[in-house]
């Protein structure tokens, strides 16, 4: 039992956070968000560092590391609210690797792993995927049916129509198959890939929550009202404590999900549902609390908190909101309990 990162993992975490702290400052995030653009320079740099392929097998051009390393990077990207389409690429790679044919793997994985190709993951119904993140500029889009099937749509075959979501730190699109375009089905079971994707999205939310907490703590230590720092008011301190509670709870669940993916896939379904349920609910509450504790300032465009709030809103419902995942936890737990009592 060792619930901590290895030295290598700690190194990856520190490096990733340091890098993003200098490359993805609020000024830079804001600049891209206001322009409705992605940070191309940063994406290229991260591709060069192999981030999109961190969990892709070495034989497919990736780094062959695990989901724990994957969530370390995604949490850091969430924390920085980085305006790069990296998550889409990495999530698409998960599906190609875990549910694609050897041919699909050979065709797409090396490019996705190096970041030279871009991917996106979304859900669709009746042939249309709404608010597919990172789809603008993607070379390939993976679209999930409601029944668990997944389709692979190359950009050439797709109609990708940009849509402005409330989160401009990512570019979203309405995706459908273009007239005359083709769709490949991913033939293997997609559930392993989807569970990993859920954990990855949860990790980004944990990063968002952590950043909201850190900004809030720094603010309430400085900001004075009635002659004292507002952090000395219990109403403020206790709300910040609740933010920590929600953030750390979601982090525990997300790390569990990542570890399960790497070491004990029997526990992955539960771990993924736990991660997404906790991080989605936590992402919403912590970013809302951060705005509240900043008072009027927190509600302004300049305060930068709103990027976190908006990203949390989108990520919280992406691949299922809290209620969806609580229902899964409940079903899995009931299954276990009923099996044990038989």
């Amino acid at each position, binding site marked *: 039992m060792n619930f901590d990162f290895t030295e290598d993992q700690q190194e990856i975490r520190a490096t990733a956070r340091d890098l993003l702290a200098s490359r993805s400052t609020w000024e830079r995030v804001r600049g891209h968000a206001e322009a409705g653009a992605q940070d191309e320079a940063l994406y290229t740099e991260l591709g060069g560092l192999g981030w999109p392929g961190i969990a892709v097998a070495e034989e497919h051009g990736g780094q062959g590391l695990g989901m724990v390393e994957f969530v370390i990077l995604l949490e850091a990207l969430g924390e920085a609210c980085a305006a790069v389409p990296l998550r889409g690429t990495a999530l698409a790679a998960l599906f190609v690797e875990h549910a694609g044919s050897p041919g699909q793997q050979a065709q797409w994985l090396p490019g996705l792993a190096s970041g030279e190709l871009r991917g996106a993951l979304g859900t669709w119904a009746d042939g249309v995927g*709404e*608010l597919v993140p990172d789809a603008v500029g993607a070379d390939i889009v993976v679209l999930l049916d409601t029944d668990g099937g997944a389709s692979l749509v190359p950009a050439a075959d797709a109609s990708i129509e940009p*849509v*402005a*979501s*409330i*989160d401009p730190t990512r570019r979203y699109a309405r995706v459908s198959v273009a007239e005359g375009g083709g769709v490949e089905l991913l033939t293997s079971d997609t559930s392993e890939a989807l569970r990993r994707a859920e954990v990855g999205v949860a990790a980004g939310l944990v990063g968002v929550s952590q950043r909201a907490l850190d900004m809030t703590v720094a603010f309430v230590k400085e900001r*004075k*009202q*009635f*002659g004292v720092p507002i952090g000395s*008011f219990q*109403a*403020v301190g206790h709300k910040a404590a609740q933010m920590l509670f929600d953030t750390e709870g979601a982090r525990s669940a997300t790390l569990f999900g990542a570890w399960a993916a790497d070491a004990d896939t029997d526990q992955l379904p539960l771990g993924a549902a736990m991660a997404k349920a906790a991080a989605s609910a936590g992402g*919403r509450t912590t970013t*809302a609390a951060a*705005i*509240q504790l900043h*008072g*009027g*300032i*927190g*509600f*302004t*465009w*300049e305060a930068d908190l*709103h990027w976190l*709030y*908006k990203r949390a*809103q*989108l990520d919280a*419902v992406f691949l299922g*909101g809290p*209620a969806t995942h609580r229902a899964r936890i409940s079903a899995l737990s009931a299954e276990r309990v009923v099996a044990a009592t038989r």
Partner: protein
Amino acid sequence: MDLTFDATEAQFRDELRDWLSTNGPGPEPEGEDEQYAWRRDWQRKLHDGGWAGVHWPVEYGGRGATMVESAIFYEELARSGHPLPANVLGLLLGGPTLMVWGTPEQKDRYLNPILSAEEIWCQGFSEPEAGSDFAAVKTRAVEQADGSFLVTGQKVWTSGAQYSKWCMLVARTDFDAAKHKGLTYFLMDMDQPEVQVRPLKQITGEAEFNELFIEDARIPAENVIGGVGNGWKVALTTLMNERAGLAFGLQVRLRVMLDELTEIAASSGQIEDPRVADTLGELHLRCEILRLTAYRGLTATMKYGQPGPEGSLTKWMWSETNQMLTQFAADVVGPEALTMGTKWSYELLRARGNTIEGGTTEILKNIVAERVLGLPKAR
């Protein structure tokens, strides 16, 4: 106890509904300035119809409506979908404050142009460093040899400043007096280059509020309201009037949104999911309790001159419920609610401000604990 409108009230409501169904501002134009002009025209129409200063005494050009009728006015206005009149701060805050503290000359001079929307008013209370703490007001007003004042400072959360002629300004005139004591309440002319208005963009991307940068703006002696050094008391009158009637409109807006959400949940079949029905039930319950509690407060105010314990709760209830509703809408409405430019996404973002503006929920809870429950002042 009678929770229906009596005959007079019902007649007032019916007459108003009639009027609102045949009178309106017309289609909303594009552009912020255009929209403001449209709301100004709308106020003129209301004024011409005798509906501008509903709760103002007849002697000041109002309709002399009761508090219940005033509540009905804002309820019906919200229900009609028509916008608020442009000079809402003048009507709700400025006018009533003048009626209490103004000299006969001031009332003569200022009240009528408020009603007609000829002169728009804005409110200059908050400052960047002061937040909810009035004692921390730093804007300075220094008396000159001729009795006028030169004002320098910064104000924030000033809505409508760019369209306003007059600003209700609280500034410090005595720099030695403790805390609240050295404050004075002024009417500052916004038409002078010494007052700069800068829009303050919010989380929604809109600039509903402004910052005011004031440098040596001049205010003549006759524009002091309620006497030099008495600003805290005058400001309290303004604050007490804040949202008094507006609350009823907000409550109806909430109900209209909730009904719309219920309709979406019903027509999409989501309401068959007991979890969805449960949350809708909770929202309807809160919404209705808000309405009832607001009316309880109104009755108490009319009978006893002040609201009962329930009076302090309505803003807190409304803001929490609105946040709960708009967040839930993101789940029920789906992608549209997270897409820019839709009503639902605007409401989701805008609702974040509800628990901050007009007194944070934390401050409201302090007030309830201290003034309603009589607990010792929070430390």
